[in-house]
Structure formats: C-alpha cells, structure tokens
C-alpha cells in the first residue's frame, strides 16, 4: 500500500475527484505501485506546489528577448561563420533585431526592449539560455515541450503531474489548459495518453483565445432548481441499482462521480469567475485593453486556479510567434499581447504570497535562427534557445548556460527539454526516474530514458 503524504494531501479531501482508486478501476492491474494516482511521500523535498506554463506557441526569438549577442549586432548582414543544421530554409546571413538589450534590475540580467514589463521583473527571472530540443518542425517540438516525445503518443507533463500529485482542491481538477492549440497535436499536448483519462487537462478556450472562460459542460440547457432535481433523481436511480446489485465498485464509483460533478458545478464557477476580481486587478492584467485582454484573462484565471489548488496550468498564446517573415511586426504584436499580463501575474503571485511555491515557465517549443529567412524573418531553431523560469526553488536574476556567439547552437551547460522536465518534477518533489506508469509491457516516464535535473539553476 502506498504511504500517503499528509502534508500534500489533506485527508479531509480524500473524496477528491482525483481519487485514483475510484476513478480508474480498470487500470488497477496495470498501475505501477510507485505512482498510482494516489499521492506518494515526495521523492525529494518539494520546493513548489504548482506550475504555470506560459506557452509561447510558434517559437519566440531568443536572440531578440533574453539571449544578448553583441556579435550579432556587429556582424548584422554578414555570413554565418559556421554551418547551418540540415533541413532548414534559412539563408546563412546574420540578422540583428531592432530591440535594444539592457541589463536590468539589481542582477543586471539582460533583457531586450521587446519585453519591457517582464524586464521590470528581471531580478525574479531565471533564464536558461542553453535550451535545445528535438524537432525542426512545430509538431515534433510542440510534442517535446508538452509531452517529452517528438514522435510518439505520450502523456502530457500536466497529466503526469496530476497523476503524481492529484489536485490540491477537493472539487477542482489538477490540470487545466487555457487556450490550447487545436493544431500540432492538439489535445495530445494536454492529454493523458495511456494514463487514466482523468489526468487530461480541463480545457478553457482554444487557440490562444480565452473564449467564455468556462469549463465545458459545467452548465447545460437545463438550469437552476430543475437540474438539481435531475442530479437528485440520478443518484436515487443509482442508489436503487446499487441496492439491487449488492456491493459494486462500478456503481459506487459512478455515484461518487455524480456527487463530485454536482460539487464541481457549484464550486468551479466561483473560481472561474473573473468578475470576482477588482477593477484594479483587471487593469493590471491588461484586461481593460483590447490588445492584452485575452492573454490577460488567461493569466488572471491562472492565478485564481493556482490559488485554488490546481497543479498544472498552461496559458497558451496561440500559435502566433512563428515569424518566418515580418519578424518585427509579428514579435511586436505578440509581445504587446502577452508581456504586460505576464509581468502582472508575477507581481500578483508575489503580492499574494504564492510566488515562493509556484513555478512559472515561459517559452516556446523552440527559438528562432539568428540568420534571416526570406527578407525579414527567422526560421525555427531547436538547436539553441532560451526558456525563462521564475518562482519557488529557482534562482532569480540569473542566467544559465550559453549559446555560441550568435545564438545558434546551445554550447555550454546545455539543457535538453528532458532536463527541463526533470527539473520541473524535481521542484515538485518528484524524481523523474521514479515517476513511472506501466503500459504495453513497460514502465514509461515523462523523460523516457533521459533527463538530468539542472542543479545549477536551483536556489
């Protein structure tokens, strides 16, 4: 039997919707004892309780945001002095972006003018400048960042975390995706694959749009007192069935699920309703400005969910960062839509005392080439790019790793996407090599057979 860890799983909420044994009866023979959906004693001391992934889908340019390359400015227009990776449409001519880099805050972390609001939080940011990943195309790289696999169907990182830790709230799911893309794998990127279906994300909005901000099917055509009566009737019918059948896990499980649905129906709207926030908060997140409204709503909802106990929240930008052409125009627009809400989220988490046990992760599926594509764009660059972390357990005002002089290849202290995943799990108290699930005859992991915790960024 597993040892429950009381610090992370209040026993008062034992009937939480994530209660694995009820939810996944048919999986019982397949379940690994190490992580059965009921919470384990942490493998390592946890530093954080939850993760907010600010997914910049399409791949923002690292050399225009967080990876300062003075030589790129100097050699703008010149030939790249080393070889391009294969299968690329970029021409080997260096392109410098128009955004000025400055050292920010006390730490002197380099951030460009493209992201002035995030720059104002530089002392809280931990930039990994030596990321690399698999996949020259979006599909593979998006799969890598979200599921740790560039080719095969695997559970998403949020599903793994939901599976490992469950929800911190009795009536809310552990895993929520806000505005996830329908393309590049779509649901696979927040799906459960072979993990029990309950671990797939509850979805709000799509393709970077906040939509109505509601959980699908939480409300239906019938409402009010009548729907409450229907819930009661269903439970009476189920109870009749159970009385007639004798003890039965299937029926008992369904009764539990209907009960939880009824509670979720009552609890979730309160958490999801942004109207509960002050006008000042709406303003701070940019919700009052059309440009930032959608991502601002996503970020504010993320904070409310984090506060309520959701473990893994993705706020997706939509696939907007893919500037094969018109880099300046596109990146300016995308930064304009996301930068302010993200900085507001950081400030808000701090103000509410959530910063120290929340991890935020900012980044795309890859970066962009320092060389030009077409006239004024940049191609995909999984060979080297930046991701930005912040919050509990990681060093602030800190950069880690290096790319080459122009930002093409990750060179020193390289961090593969598997390493980043291992590190995120580590911060949550999970050893990525011990979080396994038995499927199709073998134990699967988020990090497959790879991944090292990036100790150099840990606080």
């Amino acid at each position, binding site marked *: 039997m597993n040892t429950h860890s009381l610090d992370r799983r209040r026993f008062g909420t034992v009937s939480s*919707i994530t209660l694995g044994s009820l*939810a996944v009866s*048919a*999986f019982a023979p397949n379940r690994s004892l190490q992580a059965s959906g009921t919470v384990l004693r942490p493998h390592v001391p946890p530093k954080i309780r939850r993760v907010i992934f600010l997914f910049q*889908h399409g791949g923002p340019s690292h050399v225009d945001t967080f990876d300062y390359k003075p030589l790129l400015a100097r050699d703008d227009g010149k030939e790249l002095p080393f070889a391009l990776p*294969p*299968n690329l449409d970029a021409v080997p001519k260096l392109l410098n972006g128009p955004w000025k880099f400055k050292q920010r805050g006390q730490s002197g972390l380099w951030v460009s003018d493209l992201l002035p609001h995030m720059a104002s939080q530089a002392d809280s940011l931990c930039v990994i400048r030596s990321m690399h990943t698999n996949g*020259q*195309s*979006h*599909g*593979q790289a*998006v*799969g890598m960042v979200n599921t740790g696999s*560039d*080719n095969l169907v695997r559970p998403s990182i949020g599903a793994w975390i939901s599976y490992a830790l469950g929800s911190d709230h009795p009536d809310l799911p552990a895993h929520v995706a806000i505005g996830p893309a*329908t*393309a590049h*794998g*779509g*649901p*696979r990127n927040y799906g459960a*694959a072979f993990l029990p*279906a309950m671990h797939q994300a509850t979805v709000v909005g799509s*393709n*970077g749009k906040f939509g109505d901000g509601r959980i699908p*099917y939480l*409300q*239906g055509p*019938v409402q009010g007192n009548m729907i409450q009566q*229907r*819930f009661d*009737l*269903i439970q009476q*019918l189920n109870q*009749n*069935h159970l009385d007639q*059948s*004798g003890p039965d896990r*299937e*029926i008992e499980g*369904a009764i*539990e*699920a*209907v009960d939880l*649905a009824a509670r*979720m129906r009552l609890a979730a709207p309160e958490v999801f309703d942004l109207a509960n926030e002050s006008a000042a908060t709406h303003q701070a997140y940019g919700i009052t400005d059309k440009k930032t409204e959608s991502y601002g709503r996503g970020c504010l909802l993320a904070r409310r969910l984090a506060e309520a106990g959701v473990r893994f929240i993705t706020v997706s930008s939509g*696939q907007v960062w893919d500037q094969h052409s018109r880099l300046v125009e596109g990146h300016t627009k995308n930064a304009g839509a996301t930068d302010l809400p993200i900085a507001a989220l950081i400030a808000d988490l701090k103000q509410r005392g959530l910063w120290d046990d929340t991890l935020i992760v900012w980044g795309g599926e890859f970066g962009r080439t320092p060389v030009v594509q077409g006239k004024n764009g940049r191609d995909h660059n999984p060979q080297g790019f930046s991701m930005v972390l912040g919050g509990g357990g990681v060093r602030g005002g800190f950069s*880690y790793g290096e790319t080459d002089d122009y930002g093409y290849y990750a*060179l*020193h*202290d*390289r961090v*593969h996407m598997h390493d980043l995943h291992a590190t995120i799990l580590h911060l949550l108290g999970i050893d990525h090599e011990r979080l396994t699930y038995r499927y*199709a*005859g*073998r134990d699967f992991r988020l990090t497959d057979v790879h991944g090292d915790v*990036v*100790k*150099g960024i840990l606080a």
Partner: protein
Amino acid sequence: MRHCCIIWSLIAIVCLAAASQTVAQSPHTVEFFENKIRPVLVQHCYECHAAGADEVGGALLLDSKQGMVVGGDSGPVLESGNADASVLVAAMRYESSEMPPSGKLPDEVIQDFEKWIAAGATDPRSSVTAKLPMRAEIDLDQAKEFWAFQPIDAQPPATGSKSATGSQSAAAATTATGRIDQYLIDAMNDSAVVPNSIASDTTRLRRLAFDLTGLPPDQDQLADWIADPSTAHWNRIVDSLLASSEFAEHWARHWMDVARYADSNGSDFNATHHEAWRYRDYLIRSFASDRSIDTMIAQQIAGDLLPAVDDRERHDNIVATTFLMLGTKMLSERDKSKLQMDVVDEQIDTVGRAFLGLTLGCARCHDHKFDPVPTEDYYALAGIFKNTVTLKGESQKYVSTWNRTKLPVSDEQLRSIERYQSELRRLEKNLGEAETALKSLGQSGQESLAGVVIDNVDAKQTGVWKESTYFDDFVGPGYVHDNNKNKGKLSIEFATRLPKSGIYEVRFAYAYGSTRDRAVPVTVTTADGKQRVTVDQRTAPIAPVWRSLGKFRFSDQTDAVVTISNAGTSGYVIADAVQFISQEDADSEVAGETETEKLAKQKRVSQQKVVDKWKQQIKIFKAAAPPKLPEAMAPADVADSELTDSHVHIRGEVRNLGDVVRRGFLQVCSPGDARIANPSGSGRRELADWLTDPDNPLVARVFVNRVWMHLMGQGIVRTVDNFGAQGERPTHPELLDALASDFVREGWHLKALVRDIVTSSAYQRSTDYSAANAELDPENRLLWRAHRRRLPAEAVRDTMLQVAGELDRRGRIEQMAGRGTLVSSNDANSKAEFAGVSEPCRSVYLPTVRSYMPPLLTMLDVADPDLLVGRRPTTNVPAQALVLINSPDVNHWATEASKRVMHSATGFDTRLHNTFLLTLQRDPTAVDRNTASQFFADRENDPAAWREYIAGIFASTEFRLLD
C-alpha cells in the same frame, strides 16, 4: 555544480594549452595520454562512464583500456589507428550521439583525441575493469517453455468428475458450449466457489442484444422471448442477431479499436484520411459474411500481394491493408529516415500487440527486457516493413504523405472516365482558342471592367473584413469577406462621384459559393434616395464575375454609393467590386470613338461572350463528372531492385547501425531460425503466412481471448494485448486452448465462436453478488457470476438515439469527402467542425477525427484513436457525469424520447412502463414506481418532467451498464 564544472573545464583547457606549448609530446606517448586524454575523460566522461557511476550510460565504461576496447551498446568506441572510424570521436564531434551532453568540447581537445587514436591510442591504465552487470543473453530454448509460446494443446475438461454442480451432464460436455461450462465448473469445484444461477430473462436478452449488436433488443423480440424463454428460442435469437448487419457493425468497431482506426492523421499535421472508411466498410462486410479470421489477418498484412479470383476480392485485399497505414505519424518530421523508422516501429508494435499479444516495440533499442525478443528479431521484422512503401511523396515541403493504390474498377467505369476526359479536353481546347482570339482583339479581354469600377481596396470598411484570394476570379488584388462573424457590425461602402448625371447599371462582383448568405443586404444611394436590394451569394453572378443590381439614376452632384452589410445574414458575405455602367454609353455612341474602334469593341464584346459560353459549359460539364477512380490508403512493396535487409539500429538510433539481419519473424515461436529463406518481395506475404499458420501458438489464442473479453467482461488472459511475461497468466489455460484449437480447426469463424460462448451457461449467469463467493474469489476470476460491464460509448449514444426515435440505421460512406489535405489548418484561428454526435447514424459511421473526438464519446471512454486499444479503460470522473447531464444532444434525445412516451399512452402507469421498456428493456419494479412517483409528484402530465425523468435514466448506472 555545472557552473563549477565549466570553470574547472576552462581552467583545465587553459592548463592543457599551456602544457602543450612547453611539452610538445608525441601523441603515442604515455605523457600525451596523461596530459591530454586522461584529464578530459575524468572531467567529462567518468560521471556516466566509470565503474562508480550511478547508472552506466550505454553500458560503456571509459575508465579502463579494456572498457574502451570492449565498448558498450554501440560496440568498441575506438579503432586504434583510425580516428575517423572511432565511435568516441564521432560522439565528441557530435556526429552520432552527442558527447559529452553538456556541451561540445573545444576543437583542440577533439583533435588531441584524433591524434591519440591515430597514433595507436596508448592507454597505460589498468586493463582490469569493474564488471558491468551484463544482461544475460536470451535463452530461447528456455524461453519457449513459457506458456504462451507452447503449442496450443486442447485437453478435454475433467468432465464434472467431482460433483454435478452446474447441472452439466457428461454428454453436454462433448459440445463446445458444454465444454466451456465444464472447464469453468471444474475450476470452481476446485475452490469451493458456487456459480450463480442464470440471470433473469430480461437481463439475459438485454445482455445478449448489446453484446452482439451494440443495441438493445427490439420490443417484439423482447415480448416473444418473455413468452418463450426456452433454450431453443435463445439459440434462434442468437442466430438472428448473428445474421444482422448490426452485429457486423458492432464487431467491426471492436476491431477498429485494435486497428487504431481514424479518419485523420492527428499529430502535428492532421491530414485527412479520405479513404480510411473503405477499411471500416471492409471490416463490416467481412464480419457480416463471416469471412474467416485467418483470411482477414493475411489480407490486412499482405492483401496487395495475395492472389485474387476476381475484382471484388482484389478490392478487399487492397483495402484491408489500410490496417498498416492508420497509425498516427509525425508527417512534418524533416529527417525522413527517422520518420521511416518511426513508422516501421509503429507498424511492428501494432502487429505485435494486435495479433501476437507481444510488446515488440520494446526491442527497438535493446533486447526485450522481459520477453524473449532479441533486437535481431525486431530488425528482422523491421526489414519487412522497411521494404514496404507506407509513406510516399510530400503534400507540401517537408510534409510526407502516404502511398495510395488504385482500386479495381469495371470496364464501364473506366470507359466513362475516358469519355469524360476526352470531352473535357475538347471543351478546354475550344476555350483556349476563344481566349486566344479574344486576346488578339486587344485590351486583353478586360471589357467587363468598362464603366467606373471600384475595387474593395478602395472601399470604406466598417469593422474588420478578412481579405482573401481563395477563388481566383476576382477584380483587383483580391476580395474581402466577413468571416461569417460579427453579424450586423460589418459593412463596406463603395462610393464614387460619377462624371455625369444619368441612368447607370450597377453591377456587383463577389466570389459565390455554397457557404455564402442567400440574402446579402445591399443599399444603393441614388439621386432618388436609398434603394435596398438583396443578393443571393450562393448563386453565380453573370459571367464572368458581375451581377447586376439593377439600373438607377445618379447625380454628378452627390456620391453614388453602394453599401454591402452583413446585418441579418447567416452565411459568409463577400465583397469584391462594384461597377457603374452608364446606360447612355451603352446605347449611344461615345464621343470621339471612331467607327473602327466601335467595330473592334463590338467584336471584343461578342468574342467575350464566346469565352464566357465555353467557361460556363466546362463548369456545367465538370459538375456532372463521373466519380473519380477509387483508390485506397494502402501500402506496396518497394521495387525489386531496392529490396534489402535491415541493419540493427543500436539503441534505436537512426544512424547508429549494427549488423544486417535477414528478414524474418520471432524465433521464440518459430521452428528454426525464423528467417525467410528467399523473400518473394518485402516479406509481408511470408509474415502473413507465419501469423496464420495453425501452429503459431499466439495468434489464435490472442484472438479468441479478445472475443471472450468482449462477451464475458474479462479476458481469460486479462491483459488482452500482452501475453508476455509482464502480462497476466490465463485464468483457465485449458479453456483458452480448447477455444483456440476449435476456432482454428473449424475455420477461424467469428460467428461460430461467439455462438459457442453466448449459448453457454457461464455467459448467461446473473451478476448477483454473493458474499461467500466474493470472499473466496473477490475478482471473479472463476466466473462464478457474470461481470457487470460498461456499455461502450457508441452503444450508449446509439441507444439514446434509438430511444429518441431518431436512429438512422443506414451506413455512411466517404465521411471525409470535401475535406482538404488537412482536416483543419495549422493556424491559430483554425476551427474545424465535423459531423458530430447529433448526426443520427450509428456511431461507427461518425468521422473519427484525431484531435476532434466528440466529448460525449471520449467521456464515455471511446477508444483513443491515437492508440491501439484492446480493452477500453473505464473511468468514473465528474466530467463524464457532466457531459451526460449537460450535453445539448443528450437533452435533445431526452426531449424527443419524452414526446414518444407521452404520445404512447395517456395514463401515468403505462407511460412509466413504456419508458422502462424503451430505456432499460424491463418492467418497472415497485421501487422504481416509488422513485418515479416521488419525482413526478403533481407533474405527471408535464412534458418537462418526463424529459427530466428520461434524462435522469440516460445518466444513470443501469442505462450504461450491462447487468
């Protein structure tokens, strides 16, 4: 930590550089090794490749000479004297694997290693290396002792020797059905568990109908059965259900789960599988006609290579191979050799689990850790699939697409296509000639742009209109549309000051189409005030682009304005250009125009009419085109000249090649070396023969076990896709072998197998709980009772449709017709809608679009089409309850059903009775009546109360479970 390493390694490099200046050692010396090589190994390699490492990477030790010579998974890491051929150098250069992973070492360091190896790789370190925990070689002889690899051996049951429990006579045990019961009873007698009695008549029939057809029994059948619940009647009902088309549909769906059936690729590039439906219909046809399962297996593996007596058989042979094509693929992967190996891997994994119940995918990188499948066997199979063309060509740059095979067609069909094409060529030639003639008349046929033309780029937009150039017949650089959104908020104003007052014909250009609105409101501001007209944009303008809005009077003192709005529209609204043609121009001579010019203009106008006529004819002709030549999504063998065996790929890496392995199968369940002596092509035909060989120990067992699971709730081997060491052992091995050997001997017929099982007592037992039995056998492994089971998602939905009186039992074909290459585009705004659950056909005919599965079905645990699903998961989550309660479709079906019930009778009791017959196929009990009367209270005649009551039943456990 890492940071320190960097600093240390920089210092080390600096020191080394300094050292190289002072002591110019020769690379064959020990000093060179000590100064240049050992420090680097210690610094960068020992963490993972030394005896003390937590986990030795790639089974490779670099802390001794012997370790380097013996090597790891990739073999020896250095070839003394040949740096370029040494794995170590390739890895340091980041050419093969990338070592060290934290960053490429400086070129000088790599050059040192090159020099050192070239000079003989002098290594003074002790040659004694710590012993690696080497994995034992797979012992195939010993492995063959495992039950699943043993020949199928049918031993008769002990024929009730211990007691007569279960009232089976010895005589009954000679029939297949009798034997099934006897094996089960024998096992129960051994453990003192007492089997339940037979379930109630209504419960049994409901179970049987759902298991065989995925639908409830019909009302007449139920009434007849209750009147005569005899064994003979049961058998007759079994036969009639087996003969129904619903049986074939339901069982095809079971196999579609295993075949990871989908109508789109999913993944990164959700390409449409336009032709996958043919495979679904092949399955339905095959199960309907009880085609033997060995034939079906052979067709699915190698149908394209099999002989056929006629076109119909040839057709099915080809369509069946779609099985190999259906896996989800990373089509945009730019490294095509990696993509090929991923596709091959998916095929091996699917064939392994679907037919053999083995997880062969595990042997891609190393010998299978649990099952006796050496990597060589994996690559023997990989050779077969590498010689099979699955992917072919690209649908756009870097994005692969798959092979397509033309299907046989009748001569008549061929002729009609030939006729069509030759007629089309003739029409196009005429058009070409007419256009050339028009060009030669000058002004390049732009006569239709006479008068005053205002293009959309010069119009004033209110709200955001979307630009498009999708259809190529437009004026100016493109046209705009309202994106079918923001109704009432968008308008576009084409305004101009006309040169002189008078009557003008106003013409409007738009790209018409079926998605357009039928009554687009247009306001024309004339000298006589505003005039309103509507335009049906589903119909074509007069050729080529213009439609007349009528003739109006305009003044040269005020603007002539045409305003197109999307207010009140329900389809796309298009605006391209507006034209004003002076009627005086048209009738009278334009000042200054010479007679010659006038003549030329007339000629141009009449020639334009000829061009338009041909265009129109071609359009009409194309609309009546005969159906395209049918093709299937099917593989083919590579050309004979390209046939080749596969290398082992070390650790599964695409470019890390080991020995070549001859094509073949699994040694553990084959006599001899399991290699194909002389492959006739790819080897798929031989693979099909091997799989369907009566002596293959796995295939028949795996298949009958799947059927047993569908009917009994659990497999005899509960892990239906895994018969290996990590799978469960059979609860009743003798029974499994008896079923498998009967099945093979009697011709691999599904219907006979199903009949044998459902006519057994075991199948018909009640699900009643017994504390005494549960104490002895809590998981019901002995089958003392029937397992209470979930209905599949499709059956739940189809039954709700049926109860609502809306189920259309006709099939559907070509459900993806009209979709483009992608089911939806890969941009942020893409939205795709598919025939959803409201389409009243059986669920098996709904599109199975990866990434767009209907929530109602996914919440009810429909098979994830990304994966091979032998046994569907059964979840109980709040989202499931919520979708059943709040889905508009479910509420609609409940509403329709409540109307039927209210029409069916006037009295409450009869209505309640009818409700139960419709939804649960039984009479209400006293408890049910009590619950109902409490619920209805004084609302017995309230339609909303009936809707709520039926919606409650739809979400209840009894509706969704088989007792």
